[in-house]
C-alpha cells in the first residue's frame, strides 16, 4: 500500500443507542485494512463510541428518528474520521472540552468524552453551531506494522 492509497466510506444510521456498538465495529472493520495494532484499533473504537454517543445523547437528546453521519477516510496510513449530527449544537466549545465538564450529570455522564478523544487521537476539531448541529473531526496517523501473519 503506497502513500497515494485512498479509500473512503460514509455511514448514516438512526440515532439509537444500539447503533453505538455497530458504529465502532464498522469503523474498526474499515480501518483494519491498514493492519493496525490492537491498541490503535481499540483507541479508534473508543473515540468513535464517544462521538457517536454524544451525537445521540447530547445532539439529539435520544430522539430515534434523527440520523448520525460518519465519514472515514484512509490516505496512506492516515485516518480521518468525521462524526456529524444535525442536533442542538454546542454553545461553548471551550467549556465542553474541559475534563469532567458535562451538561447531563443526571445521566451519570463522566464529562470525559472529549478528553479521551484528545488523548487517543492526533487531532480533534469540533465544529458546532447552536441549533444546527455538531461535527467532530478526528485524525490519527497509524504506525507502520510488520505483518504478523506468515504470508
Amino acid at each position, binding site marked *: 500500500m503506497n502513500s497515494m492509497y485512498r479509500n473512503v466510506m460514509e455511514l448514516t444510521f438512526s440515532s439509537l*443507542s*444500539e447503533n*453505538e*456498538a455497530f458504529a*465502532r465495529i464498522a469503523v474498526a472493520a474499515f480501518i483494519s485494512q491498514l493492519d493496525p495494532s*490492537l*491498541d490503535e484499533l*481499540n483507541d479508534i*473504537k*473508543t473515540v468513535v*463510541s*464517544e462521538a457517536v*454517543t454524544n451525537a*445521540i*445523547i447530547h445532539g439529539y437528546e435520544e430522539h430515534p428518528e434523527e440520523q448520525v453521519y460518519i465519514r472515514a477516510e484512509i490516505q496512506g496510513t492516515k485516518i480521518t474520521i468525521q462524526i456529524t449530527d444535525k442536533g442542538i449544537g454546542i454553545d461553548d466549545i471551550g467549556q465542553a472540552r474541559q*475534563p469532567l465538564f458535562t451538561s447531563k450529570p443526571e*445521566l*451519570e*455522564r*463522566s464529562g*470525559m*468524552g472529549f*478528553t*479521551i478523544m484528545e*488523548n487517543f487521537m492526533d487531532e480533534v476539531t469540533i465544529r458546532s453551531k447552536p441549533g444546527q448541529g455538531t461535527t467532530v473531526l478526528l485524525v490519527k496517523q497509524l504506525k507502520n506494522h510488520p505483518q504478523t501473519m506468515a504470508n
Partner: protein
Amino acid sequence: MSLSIHLTSNQRVLIVRLTGDLDHHTASDVRNRIEAELVKDIHTHLVLNLENLQFMDSSGLGVILGRYKQMSSKGGKMYLCSVQPSVFKLMEMSGLFQILPTYQDECSAISACEVAS
C-alpha cells in the same frame, strides 16, 4: 445483548461480573441491575470484576463513578478487579484509580472489602 451481567454474593459483598461491551447502551442495565440488588439491603460493599470486559468507553466510567458515589454515601467500599489492558488504559488516563483501587483478582478485592468492614 452485547453485555452480560452476572451478580453473585460473598457475605456482605455484592460481586458483579461483566462480559462484553460497556457503553452508553449497556450502562443503564448495569446501574439498574445493581440498584435492584442493593435495595434489598443485604450488601455493604461492591466488587466489579472486569476480567471479561472487552470494551469500555466514558459511559462506563460514568456508571462506575455513579456506583462509587452511591456506595461511599452509605459508608460502603467499592473495588475493581481483573481490569484488562485496554480498559486499564482508559481508566488510568481518566484518573479513576486515584479514587477507586483495583486488584489483580476477585479474591483480593473481596478480602480488601472484609478488611475495610
